[in-house]
């Protein structure tokens, strides 16, 4: 029974309950979404290359910004991390599979449906949603026929995320190898455990918010309609109560990935493992009490603004601890610079820049100037692109030999890294200047004084987009690479490196014995 292999053909993928198959599907799905969302970004940047409208109408431009964000957040970044969790968590804790394998299949297969629905809105009368991914009423209620489909697809994404999160928590808490007590867990497992709790806490909040939008539109309620006694600002409070933890849902697993990779290529244990765990938990807690810093211009009481300012600034402390710990890990290590390490190092550099602008954004008087300007666009793209996305590339290069049994093309990987890093900065760094000079976000055209930096950002975006084709090339040619050893790298720690490469269809049918487990961790 333990040795049965996968089904043949399409049935393998449709019916699979295998964590590796499901992980692969999640990862491929997110890569497809990354390219779809990316091409929308290129529509945006092409239009913004020069002042004046050249290519698209403002309506379509707004559809592109909205869809780009929804697809990148819910379709690319989140499923990619769930894919990594599926592949790696069972192998890292010595479990045979995820705890709830059938639900695992279901939580993946909901996603193509959800995004099929979302993408189909592009062809509906009135076009795709165009009110920004934040879906603020009353504007979102002006969406055409796409409106109920938007709500339904968000519901489906939420259901998928909640099921994925439940599965991860149950797996981690119940199926660890003997003697792997909680504080012995690898950082990637830890950060995902915390992320999964965040998901369970906030996805229902988002579902509630969009359901209220639905009833406001179709069933005569007035949750957010001033004319009926409702409050448009209440939606923003509810949305950001989801939205701020959501930001950490997209970055905590990235912290985990980087915390796996830096020790391997520094040939030194992770500095301050336990303080990393406490810092991540602290960030997760703080993420629930800072939501209104997204709303400093809506008109809050002074005391409210001050509270949210102080709470937000506090996040810099545990985040700083993480960055110092990574540097502490590298300090007096024996460093080499393979592609995963390069992406991890760029993550630490560039995420920190995003963190700096984050601290600046916390200061209310300054935030009143930054709010809804390109400064904010620069900030969140710095934490999401060279942050989350770079950590995903790092993870892919790091574990690809374990997944496929072959080494990827290191030259192509390094080329991918250097081009991505150059272009990501060319794209997003000038946006800081644009925002400070007064360019609002989400506009299809701008005054001529903003022309030069916009042109630069557009060139960068096109370069960044094209550079990602190298990644596809690396994936497609991976099979031709040299055979990978079981350990793959010189000094990796963790149970995943004790199984063969490629990892067999079933691993850890029996829990790893104490000795193996200890060697892997210590």
């Amino acid at each position, binding site marked *: 029974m333990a040795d049965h292999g996968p089904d043949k053909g399409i049935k393998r993928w449709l019916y699979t309950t295998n964590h590796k198959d499901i992980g692969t599907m999640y990862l491929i799905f997110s890569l497809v979404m990354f390219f779809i969302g990316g091409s929308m970004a290129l529509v945006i940047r092409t239009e913004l290359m020069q002042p004046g409208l*050249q290519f698209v109408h403002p309506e379509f431009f707004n559809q592109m910004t909205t869809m780009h964000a929804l697809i990148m957040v819910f379709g690319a970044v989140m499923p990619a991390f769930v894919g990594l969790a599926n592949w790696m968590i069972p192998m890292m804790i010595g479990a045979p599979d995820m705890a709830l394998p059938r639900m695992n299949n279901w939580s993946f297969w909901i996603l193509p449906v959800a995004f099929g629905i979302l993408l189909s809105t592009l062809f509906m009368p009135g076009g795709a949603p165009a009110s920004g991914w934040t879906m603020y009423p009353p504007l979102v209620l002006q969406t055409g026929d796409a409106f109920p489909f938007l709500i339904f697809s968000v519901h489906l994404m939420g259901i998928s995320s909640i099921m994925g999160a439940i599965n991860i928590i149950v797996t981690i808490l119940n199926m660890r190898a003997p003697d792997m007590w909680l504080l012995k867990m690898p950082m990637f497992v830890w950060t995902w455990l915390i992320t999964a709790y965040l998901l369970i806490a906030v996805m229902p909040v988002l579902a509630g918010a969009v359901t209220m939008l639905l009833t406001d539109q179709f069933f005569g309620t007035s949750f957010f309609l001033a004319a009926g006694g409702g409050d448009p600002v209440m939606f923003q409070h509810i949305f950001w109560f989801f939205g701020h933890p959501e930001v950490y849902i997209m970055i905590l697993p990235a912290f985990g990935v980087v915390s796996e990779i830096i020790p391997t290529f520094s040939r030194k244990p992770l500095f301050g493992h336990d303080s990393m765990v406490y810092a991540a938990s602290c960030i997760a807690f703080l993420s629930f009490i800072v939501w209104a810093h997204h709303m400093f211009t809506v008109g809050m009481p002074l005391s409210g603004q001050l509270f949210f300012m102080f709470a937000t600034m506090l996040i810099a402390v545990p985040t700083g601890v993480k960055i110092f710990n990574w540097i502490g890990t*590298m300090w007096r290590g024996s*460093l080499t610079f393979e592609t995963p390490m390069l992406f991890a190092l760029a993550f630490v550099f560039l995420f920190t820049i995003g963190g700096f602008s984050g601290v600046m954004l916390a200061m209310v*008087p300054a935030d009143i100037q930054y709010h809804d300007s390109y400064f904010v666009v620069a900030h969140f793209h710095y934490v999401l692109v060279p942050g989350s996305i770079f950590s995903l590339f790092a993870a892919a290069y790091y574990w690809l030999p374990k997944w496929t049994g072959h080494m990827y093309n290191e030259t192509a990987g390094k080329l991918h890294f250097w081009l991505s890093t150059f272009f990501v900065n060319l794209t997003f760094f000038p946006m800081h200047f644009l925002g400070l000079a007064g360019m609002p976000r989400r506009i299809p055209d701008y005054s001529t004084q903003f022309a030069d930096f916009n042109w630069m950002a557009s060139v960068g975006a096109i370069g960044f987009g094209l550079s990602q084709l190298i990644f596809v090339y690396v994936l497609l040619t991976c099979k031709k690479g040299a055979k990978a050893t079981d350990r793959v790298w010189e000094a990796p720690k963790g149970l995943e490196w004790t199984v063969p490469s490629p990892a067999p269809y079933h691993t850890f049918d029996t829990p790893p014995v104490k000795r193996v487990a200890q060697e892997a961790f210590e």
Partner: protein
Amino acid sequence: MMRKLLCSVPGLVWAGAASADYAVNMPKGVTELSAETYEIHMLAFWWCVAIGVVVFGAMLYSLVKHRKSKGVQPADFSHSTMAEVVWTALPCFILLFMAVPAAETMIKLEDSRDPDMSVVVTGYQWRWHYDYQDSDIAFYSSLAESSLKARRLESGIDPYSVENYLLEVDNPLVVPVGAKVRVLLTSNDVLHAWWVPDLAIKKDAIPGIINETWFKADVAGTYRGQCAELCGKDHGYMPVVVEVLEADAYAEWIAGQTADTTGSNE
């Protein structure tokens, strides 16, 4: 294209020192609070630079010195209580240095008592309406004709040939210099936000709610901004223009407005 490429690349590198064509920083503005906001922005910026120098410096040192190719044997330490306490506590103090001045400015920014005049600003898709509370003056303020023509897809008009492209209106908000102007904001349809960088104020215009902010411009001049909250397809086409006039010019303007009843209160 080539000319732009040649200008842009060094422009990115030397942005700080570049020519006046590049606005790379927040404007200092023309009010007491815009100057304070600028100071807070620069305070946060320089703290970030200082921390960046230390953090990135340590990291770069490690990247250069602790390479395997230099034959370095890895150490095996994995924690240091002393270091961890220091780098947890120190940021808390640095944050205090930033938080205190920010809070002080915040308190002033929220104090809109005793205004010299009040204007109700109402957001519409896609223009502004200004209603002076101390007189009968009220009018809409829409994107200027010149920009309106040039902004169309394939308009054939070069935006560079239009003065203040997308930042010009038919009827600007006119206020006297040195007066404390209370701005009351609301909206007739969806959310908008009224932003003038030189006055350092941005506040949302929300249907069913009246928001309040204020400014006191110390220098006469024309100050331009834009709607900052996505409000639909023409969100990019509802600029805010505030004209700050000397007392006598303002009195003249008022007289002109009250005499000319055809142009106002439509």
